[in-house]
Structures are given as C-alpha cells and as structure tokens.
C-alpha cells in the first residue's frame, strides 16, 4: 500500500506548478496506512488558502487587504460563481479545514488541496501556458526554466498592490496570531461573504475591517523570524533562489523554516504577474515540511491544518434531491441520476466538461415504505406509447386538441389518444384526471404489459445450483453452509408457488440429482463423459419446489455428508456449465455457481496463469485481468440468449481465475462473490448473508432495458453487467435491486435547439409473480449554455460511479498506473476548467477553487485510486481480489459504491455502554484519517462487504476479553475474528 497517489512520482520533480500539491499529497510512507495516510495530506491545502488570496486591485491599507485576502478567493468564488450554492459558505466547507498555517508557509499550499491528488495532470498544464493558466505556471517550481526567466514582469508589480498584500499581510500576522482564539476565522468569517458577490470584488475595505482578525486564526508557529522585507521584492531573492532550490527538494530537514520566508513571496510573481499569490518552489518545500509534521515527527512543525475541517463525505452519498424541486415530475434520483443534471447546449461545452457526461440507472432500487412504484393497467387501451419513438406516456407529455391528441415529449410527434383513455382538458391544458393517473403525475410507474410484450409466456423463476464438491469445498465447510442457507431460504424463494429448483454437483464427474416428486429420496446419477455431456434424464432435474419440497429438503440435509469423504481434487466446471445449460435452457432463470478450485477438467479448463510480477508495468499487465479462455464468453453469450443469469461464488483458497469465471456473470447480469481462503468458521456468516440476499431480493426476470432520450443526445457507451442486444438495448436475464448501470451520453448535434431534454428508462421484465411488466422512469434535464451551471448541478455520486466503471474497464486494457493517471487527469482538468471559468471574472488569482457540488470529488478519486480494484501493483492486491472488486464496482449503485471506496469508520468502545437501541444515534462516522485512530480505541470499518474491526494497541485488556472472548496473550491471529457480513 502506498500512502497516497502522489507518491507515484518523485516529490521533487517539477511536474507542473499548478499541482504542487501532489507533493503534499504524498506524505512519507510513515504517514499512515493507505486510506488514512491518504486523507491526511488533503487537509493541508485548506488552511493556507485563505491568507493568500490577494485581492488584486486592492490598494487599501494593509490591514484591510490582509483581511480581504484570506477569504477573497474562496469567498468570492463560490457565491458569485455558484448560484445554486447553499449551506455554509464555501470557505468553510472546503478550505475552512485549515486554520491557515503561518505566514511564510501559507503562501505555498493553497492550490494544493484538490490538486494534491492529481499528479498526472501536471504534465499537460506545465506545458500549457496561456494567460489564464498563469496561475498554474506560477506554482511551478523555479527550477523550471520559464519561471527563473520570468521575473521581468515583476517590475511593474513590485510597486503594485500584488506585493502590497503580502508585505501587508505578514506584519499583521503577529498581532492576529496573538489575538484570535483558535477557531475565529471560520466561525466569524462566513458572514462577510454572504453578501452578493459583487461586493467581494472591490469593496474590500468594509469587510476588511471585520475580517482580518478572524482569518488569522492561528498564531504562525513556523514564522519564527520576522520576514525580511526585501523578500517581497523581485530583485532581492531571485538570485538566491535557484541555488537554494536543490536543498529544498530533498533534504528538507536541512532547511530551517525561516529561510523559506523570502522566496515564498516572490517566487510566484514571475509566472503570474497579475495576482500572483506566492507559490512555486517554496510550495514543494512547504509541503515537504508539512508532510513531515503530519507524520508527527517529534519536534517538527505544527502542521497548522485542522484535518477535521476538510470536506469529508461523512454522510455518505448525497442524492441530488434538489433536482426533484426543480422537476417535481421526475423520477426519484435513486433510480436515475445524471452526472450533472443539465445538458450542455453545444459540443464545445461538452469538450470543456472534462468529467463524464452520463447517467447512473438503478431501475429496481428499493423504495422506502410508502413510495412503492404504482402499477398501471391500461386494459383494452393497450400501453400508450408514441407511434414513432415508442416512448411511454409520461407526466411530461402534453395533450392537445381538447384531449384527443397527445404530444410526445421526446420526439414532439402528435399521437392520437385511444378512446378508452380519453379525458377532457381543463383551462390550462391539463387533463382533469391527471392526478388520479400515476403515469401522468409520477416519474416512476409500472405498466402491466399485454401479450404483445411477450416472446413466450412468462417463465417461472428458477434457481439452479452448480456446486463444486471437490475436496477443497468439502474441507472448507462450503457444502454445509450452502446447504443450510439454501434450506433456510426455501420458503422465501421468489415466485411461490411456481418456483423451480435444481441441483448439480460436480468434481471430476457430473452428478445429476433426480428430484421427482414421487421419490422420497433424491436419486443421484453420475455422468463421467466430460467431452460429450448429456442429460441422464429428460426432466425432473429442475423441478417445482412445492411439489418436490420433501425431496429437495432431504437432498440438502444429506449434501454435506454425501461428499464428506470425497478426495477428488479435480473440477470439471466447463462440462458442468454445459449440463446446466441443457437443464435450464428452456426456462432460463438463475444459475448459482459455487466454485472452490480452478476448473481443471474438460472444456473451459484454466491454467494457473499466476500473477506474474514481471508483467506489471508492461503492456502485458492487463492480460492477467481479461478472460483467458473464450469458452466462458461464449458460454455467457449462450446463457444470455436463453435468459439465464449466472452468479459466481468463488471460494478458493488459491488462484481461481476470477477474471475468466467472472465473464460469465458480466454478460448475464450476474454478480461475482469472492471469498479468499474460504473457511466456514470465518466466512460462513458472510456467505450465508450474501447467498440468502441473492436468493430473496427483488428480482426481475427475462428483462431488457432501454433508455430513450430526446433529440440531440444519444447514449453511446454502457457500463455494467449486461449484454447489449442491439446498440441501445441491454439484455438482462435477471436484474435485481442491487444492480445499477452506468452509461455515457454524447451530443449528436453541435447545437441543441430544445430547452429541455427528456430521458426515459424502460425495463421490460417478468415479475416473480409471472406477470409481464414495464417499469418506466422518466426524467427531464434543462439544456444550459453555461458551464458554471453544469458544475453547479454536478452530482458527485454519479460522476464517481461512471468514472469508476470507466476506470475498471480501462484496467482490462491498460496498465493500472495509467488508469489511475487518467482518473486524476480528468479531475485536474475539470477543476482547472472551473478555475479558469471564474478566475477571469473575479480575478481570483492563483487560488484553487472548486464548486460546492464537487467538493468531495478529489477525495473520492483518491479513494478510487486506492480501491482494491485499482490500487498499487503486483503485491498490493491479489489478482483474484482485484478482479472481484472490479466486478463489484461495475454493478454497485452510487451510494454503495461510495461507501465501498470510502468506507464508514466508527468508534465502538465509546458506545459499548449505550443502550442497544440507542446505538444508531450514538455512532458517529469518522473521517478516514490517521488522527482519528486512537490506540486506546476500538473501531469498526464498514465498506458494505466487510466489517473490519480495528483494536487499538492500548485497548483495555478486559474490554478485549469481553469482546473477543480470548485473552490477548494466546490470541493467534486477529484477522480471523473480524466479523463479516454483506
């Protein structure tokens, strides 16, 4: 595990000034374990930002400037820029975190914050010096040619305000440092910024009076020495600077803090004459120092950063509920979320939106009680759809001609209203019965589909279990857990009383089981011919559960004993899959494969590809992550064609090539569960929970999904577990409430002519009760011409979902390293674009600003880069785990994905004494920082798949005894007792 993404490049390297933060993002490994260490660096940028946002034009008294400057950039940017901005003033959210570090240091860090996470971007920016980018150039370490050469511009400015502020700011610090108590700035600062943005630009003096003292919350610890005045003038420090640079880069300890003062002030000026906040080499240096202090080296500097103040997603995913306010007829965002709830009006706007433009669809999301999806039956009128584009009637459709026609909102075609469906219109053109008809008043409805929507009569839900009974499965206790869980779920299986069930066990031979209802015990038939698999019985292999219940139960009771003496190590998965296909082919349904070893016999046998360390970092790296044998893809295609969904439970203790097996799930709408080193005692509960969830959750069978959208836009790429049956039709043999799909949009026209774009997700499926249904979600999004509005409406959860899926797909054809870089590049580009947007208008200078809506994005991207699927290289994650995590990311809905990459951390020892029913309120989610971990604490980390219990070193032994029931002295391996659940 690496401490942070930043580590991937040598800290001193002059990448691009504007991302100097990356150095900060990469604290020395000592800083902590992955997520925690990673989080820490982020904190740093926050604080300093304040003081150095120098209001460009100000000439006011030093104090006033000092006052204005700290808030200037942030305060100014958000209110002005982000119309939709609500809640606490931005400075607090994003930057409030850091009580500004001491003067000299504060200069550098500001921009780092968000960018610290995005090293790769640096290249491009370093190379791109248009004026607007000046700020970025400014941050580049002086070692780079341009900057060293740049000083001339300073001339004019040495006299101008730019320098004034700095000169001014420094001195005041003394007083301010002393005056304000610890938190002044943030508590008090915001009010001044509430006023309309225009106030921020010029009239600094008024605010200046009120603000200065609060801003400089913290006495500058670093600033032990008075600043040399000449430091602020271009002439003086320049010559000195280059020589000192090398020493700054590596041996940070050598540099006494005071010496940094002077360079800080001038280094930025050359590159960024207009507003030049102090940045540059110093920055790297400062960051180095700060990272040192974060790692809590004794005697090091005060980090000066309030980690707790940084924006952290402690409340998980935030659904863009405000969309519903603007478009009350839309479906709830839990079903459909756009990455930004706007549609750019032109191609050029799209190219400036560097984040993905797309949507996350979760068609069967579980609705809270009271919000169940209404079911509509049109009866003889038939389902009302547009003649041309086949859009279903929805609340956005308008009626005309006294109610005899309706206009499709997607393609604007005027359709006839069937006689049975006719209703008069009121004065405003609305139907009188609109409120009584859910399809005209709700964004989400379900239509009962008549027979035209059936290729064949709806099939009963069927479950077929393919269970590996080779020696490793027997030894690990798999059979017992599986048999017990299935038995306990028999009552809850979907589709009672039509449910079909069947079992096939296999090792080096295939064992069919006859569940004929007239039998009292199941009959086992062994087929040893793996090359030409045949069914020993024409039927009774997949039987009705109600009729054969007693046979199935007796089979499940005997299953663990039947094979307990099996010493067969082979596994003929391929032939078993073919056999299962023959059994299920007619009906379709769900195939659950329990595989405990690498398939070794018959078609589809896999070799131990091994996780070759030499492959990492080369062009061959990705080959390990793609299916080796085309057999599995072909099988998957056959399964999809016959409406069979495959769920893979891989429980191997060794490599079992999830990459190949997983493709079965990938193209059939299935899911991959992976239990490394499965032992019934350790993982039994987890398996039990996940298996019963899999068997009993709401499932839609034999389904297809299509998303229609208005003119001018088109969905181009789809990400998730499905198979494309035509360019925009997703075939989903089974889809359930745990699966979400992501897709990307593209503009077909260079200029959008409409004001609103409508989307309609339609899922045609067979319900477990055997009814053909169409679930329709309709949403509208406004077309905008303003990039700022796109940022304002951005939805971090959806963006992270789409980005994560793209990244996982890229990791199948590219190196992990470059996948991570692409992610970071996108982040940096988007933040830079946002910055450019407002730097021009408001002259914010070298500050980093980002929209309120994306304040967690940098953190999530970092978390994504550190997720199991993408982090590190060879030794960091085993290949199987990496692939399994990748498959999970491809299906998780936004909320669960965010929790997966940024898990919830709770401190438990404090709530152990609380009444059990009060615990929910008492548990507080903690940020994932090292500081949050107290060695005397007991913590729980929950990523939605696993519970990780962290026992502090100094935890009271009695407590430990009580919890684990084991005394510490003879407790062998802590990891074995982690409680796990779905």
């Amino acid at each position, binding site marked *: 595990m690496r401490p942070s993404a930043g580590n991937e490049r040598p800290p001193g390297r002059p990448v691009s000034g504007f991302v100097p933060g990356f150095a900060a993002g990469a604290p020395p490994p000592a800083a902590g374990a992955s997520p925690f260490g990673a989080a820490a660096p982020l904190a740093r940028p926050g604080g300093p930002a304040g003081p150095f946002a120098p209001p460009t034009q100000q000439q006011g008294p030093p104090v006033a400037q000092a006052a204005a400057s700290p808030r200037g950039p942030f305060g100014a940017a958000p209110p002005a820029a982000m119309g939709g901005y609500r809640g606490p003033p931005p400075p607090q959210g994003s930057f409030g975190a850091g009580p500004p570090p001491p003067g000299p240091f504060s200069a550098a860090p500001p921009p780092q914050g968000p960018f610290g996470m995005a090293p790769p971007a640096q290249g491009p920016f370093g190379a791109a010096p248009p004026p607007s980018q000046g700020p970025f150039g400014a941050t580049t370490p002086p070692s780079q040619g341009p900057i060293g050469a740049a000083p001339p511009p300073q001339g004019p400015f040495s006299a101008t305000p730019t320098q004034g502020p700095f000169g001014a700011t420094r001195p005041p610090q003394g007083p301010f440092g002393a005056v304000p108590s610890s938190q002044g700035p943030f508590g008090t600062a915001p009010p001044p910024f509430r006023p309309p943005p225009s106030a921020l630009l010029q009239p600094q003096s008024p605010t200046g009076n009120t603000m200065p003292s609060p801003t400089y919350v913290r006495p500058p610890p670093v600033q032990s020495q008075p600043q040399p005045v000449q430091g602020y003038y271009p002439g003086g420090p320049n010559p000195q600077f280059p020589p000192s640079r090398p020493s700054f880069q590596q041996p940070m300890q050598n540099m006494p803090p005071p010496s940094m003062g002077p360079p800080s002030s001038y280094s930025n000026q050359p590159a960024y004459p207009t507003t030049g906040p102090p940045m540059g080499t110093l920055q790297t240096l400062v960051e180095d120092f700060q990272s040192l202090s974060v790692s809590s080296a004794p005697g090091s500097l005060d980090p000066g950063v309030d980690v707790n103040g940084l924006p952290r997603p402690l409340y998980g995913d935030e659904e863009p509920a405000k969309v519903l306010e603007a478009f009350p007829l839309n479906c709830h965002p839990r079903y459909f979320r756009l990455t930004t709830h706007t549609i750019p009006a032109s191609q050029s706007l799209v190219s400036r939106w560097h984040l993905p433009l797309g949507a996350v669809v979760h068609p069967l999301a579980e609705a809270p009680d009271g919000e169940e999806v209404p079911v509509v039956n049109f009866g003889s009128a038939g389902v009302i759809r547009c003649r041309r584009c086949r859009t279903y009637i929805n609340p956005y459709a308008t009626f005309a001609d006294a109610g005899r026609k309706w206009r499709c909102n997607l393609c604007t075609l005027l359709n006839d209203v069937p006689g049975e469906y006719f209703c008069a219109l009121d004065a405003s053109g609305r139907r009188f019965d609109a409120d009584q008809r859910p399809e005209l008043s709700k964004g989400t409805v379900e239509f009962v589909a008549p027979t035209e929507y059936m290729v064949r009569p709806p099939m009963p839900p069927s479950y077929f279990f393919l269970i590996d009974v080779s020696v490793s499965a027997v030894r690990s206790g798999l059979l017992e857990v599986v048999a017990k869980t299935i038995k306990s779920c028999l009552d809850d299986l979907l589709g009672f009383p039509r449910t079909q069930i069947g079992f096939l066990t296999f090792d080096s031979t295939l064992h069919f089981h006859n569940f004929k209802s007239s039998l009292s015990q199941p009959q086992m038939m062994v087929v040893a011919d793996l090359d030409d698999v045949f069914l020993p019985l024409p039927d009774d292999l997949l039987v009705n559960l109600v009729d054969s219940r007693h046979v199935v139960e007796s089979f499940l009771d005997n299953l663990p004993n039947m094979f307990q003496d099996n010493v067969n190590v082979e596994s003929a998965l391929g032939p078993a899959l073919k056999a299962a296909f023959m059994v299920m082919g007619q009906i379709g349904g769900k195939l659950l494969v329990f595989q405990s070893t690498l398939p070794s016999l018959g078609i589809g046998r896999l070799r131990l590809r091994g996780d070759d360390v030499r492959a990492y970092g080369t062009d061959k790296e990705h080959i390990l992550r793609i299916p080796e044998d085309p057999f599995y893809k072909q099988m998957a*295609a056959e399964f999809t064609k016959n409406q069979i969904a495959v769920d893979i439970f891989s429980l191997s203790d060794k490599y079992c090539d999830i990459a190949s097996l997983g*493709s079965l799930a*990938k193209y059939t709408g299935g899911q991959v569960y992976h239990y490394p080193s499965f032992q019934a005692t350790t993982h039994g509960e987890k398996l039990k929970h996940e298996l019963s969830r899999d068997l009993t959750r709401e499932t839609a069978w034999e389904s297809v999904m299509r998303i229609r959208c208005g003119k001018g836009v088109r969905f181009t790429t789809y990400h998730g577990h499905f198979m*494309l*049956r*035509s*360019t925009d039709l997703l075939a989903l043999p089974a889809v359930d409430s745990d699966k979400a799909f992501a897709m990307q949009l593209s503009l077909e026209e260079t200029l959008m002519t409409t004001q609103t774009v409508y989307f309609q997700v339609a899922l045609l499926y067979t319900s477990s009760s055997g009814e053909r249904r169409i679930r329709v979600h309709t949403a509208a999004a406004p077309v905008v011409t303003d990039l700022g509005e796109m940022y304002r409406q951005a939805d971090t959860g959806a963006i992270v979902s789409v980005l994560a899926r793209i990244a996982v797909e890229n990791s199948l054809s590219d190196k992990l390293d470059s996948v991570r870089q692409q992610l970071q590049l996108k982040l940096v580009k988007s933040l830079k674009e946002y910055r450019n947007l407002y730097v021009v208008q408001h002259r914010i200078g070298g500050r980093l600003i980002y929209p309120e809506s994306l304040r967690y994005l940098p953190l999530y991207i970092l978390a994504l880069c550190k997720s199991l699927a993408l982090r590190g290289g060879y030794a960091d994650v085993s290949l199987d785990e990496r692939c399994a995590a990748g498959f999970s990311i491809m299906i998780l809905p936004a909320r669960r994905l965010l929790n997966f990459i940024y898990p919830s951390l709770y401190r438990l020892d404090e709530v152990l004494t609380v009444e059990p029913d009060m615990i929910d309120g008492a548990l507080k989610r903690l940020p994932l920082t090292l500081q949050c971990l107290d060695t005397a604490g007991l913590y729980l980390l929950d990523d939605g798949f696993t519970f990780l219990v962290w026992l502090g070193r100094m935890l009271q032994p009695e407590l430990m005894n009580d919890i684990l029931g084991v005394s510490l002295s003879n407790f062998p391996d802590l990891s074995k007792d982690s409680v796990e659940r779905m």
Partner: protein
Amino acid sequence: PAAAAARPRPGGAAPAARAAEMVFVWLAAFFLVVTLIVLVIFQLMCLADLEFDYINPFDSSSRINKVVMPEFIVQALLSALFLLSGHWAMFLLSAPMVYYNYTLYERRQHLVDVTEIFNHLSREKKRRLFKIAALIVLLFLSLFWMIWSVLEEHE
C-alpha cells in the same frame, strides 16, 4: 513486369503453352479475389445489419465467424498462387494481408466476440473496409494482367 519476370524461364514449355498457363493463373487469381471481396462484403453487411438492428448479435457474429477462416484460407491461396507462378510484385501486394490475418489469428482476434461486438463494431468495420480497398486494387491488377496475358496469347 511480374509476368515478364515469369516468362523467360529457360527450358520451359513452349511459348504458346506458357501464355495459356498465364491466362489460367490470372483467371484463377481473378476469381479468388472476387471470392474474397464477396466474403468481406458479406461480413460488412452483417456488421451494418447489426448496427441498424436488423439482426441480433448472436446471429451476426456466428455468420461472420463462419466465413472468417475461409476468407483467410482463400487469401493464403491467392498469395501462394502468385508466389508459385512467379508473380513477385503481385505476391508482395497480397502478402501483407496474409501476414495481417496471421497475426490476428495468433492473437486470437480473428473471430468477432459476440459479447463485445458493439464495442468493437467500428474497429471491425474499419478493418474490413481497408481489406476491401486492398482487394479492389488486387482485383483491378489481376484483371489487367489477365487481359494482358490473353492479348499476348493471341499474338
């Protein structure tokens, strides 16, 4: 020039027989190229049908995959024909495609992947369009040489 290179074979058959032989070779080459073009156009049509949703991906890919190997074999035959009949220039023109087919086969990318067919659609189409272009060049050349050798025979 290729034909010319082949012509002065010392101790070869009589000039008339040689010329007839050449006509036969060119005729065979011509039909092989036509076959190839038909095969590739058939694949392109399957892809286009798929794109416009006239056919499902399972049928489309199985149809395409059925003719991929025949296409490769015919292509190899054509090159072998040029090589054996001593038409070096024509051989050099057709050999790269054989080599390309071979590398595809080696990487096991010669068959269309039904599960990913939509993602690869544009790539697969491009490949085949380039093939068509190259084949048409071959077609005209062999037509030209066929006529040339027929005229020569008459002289």
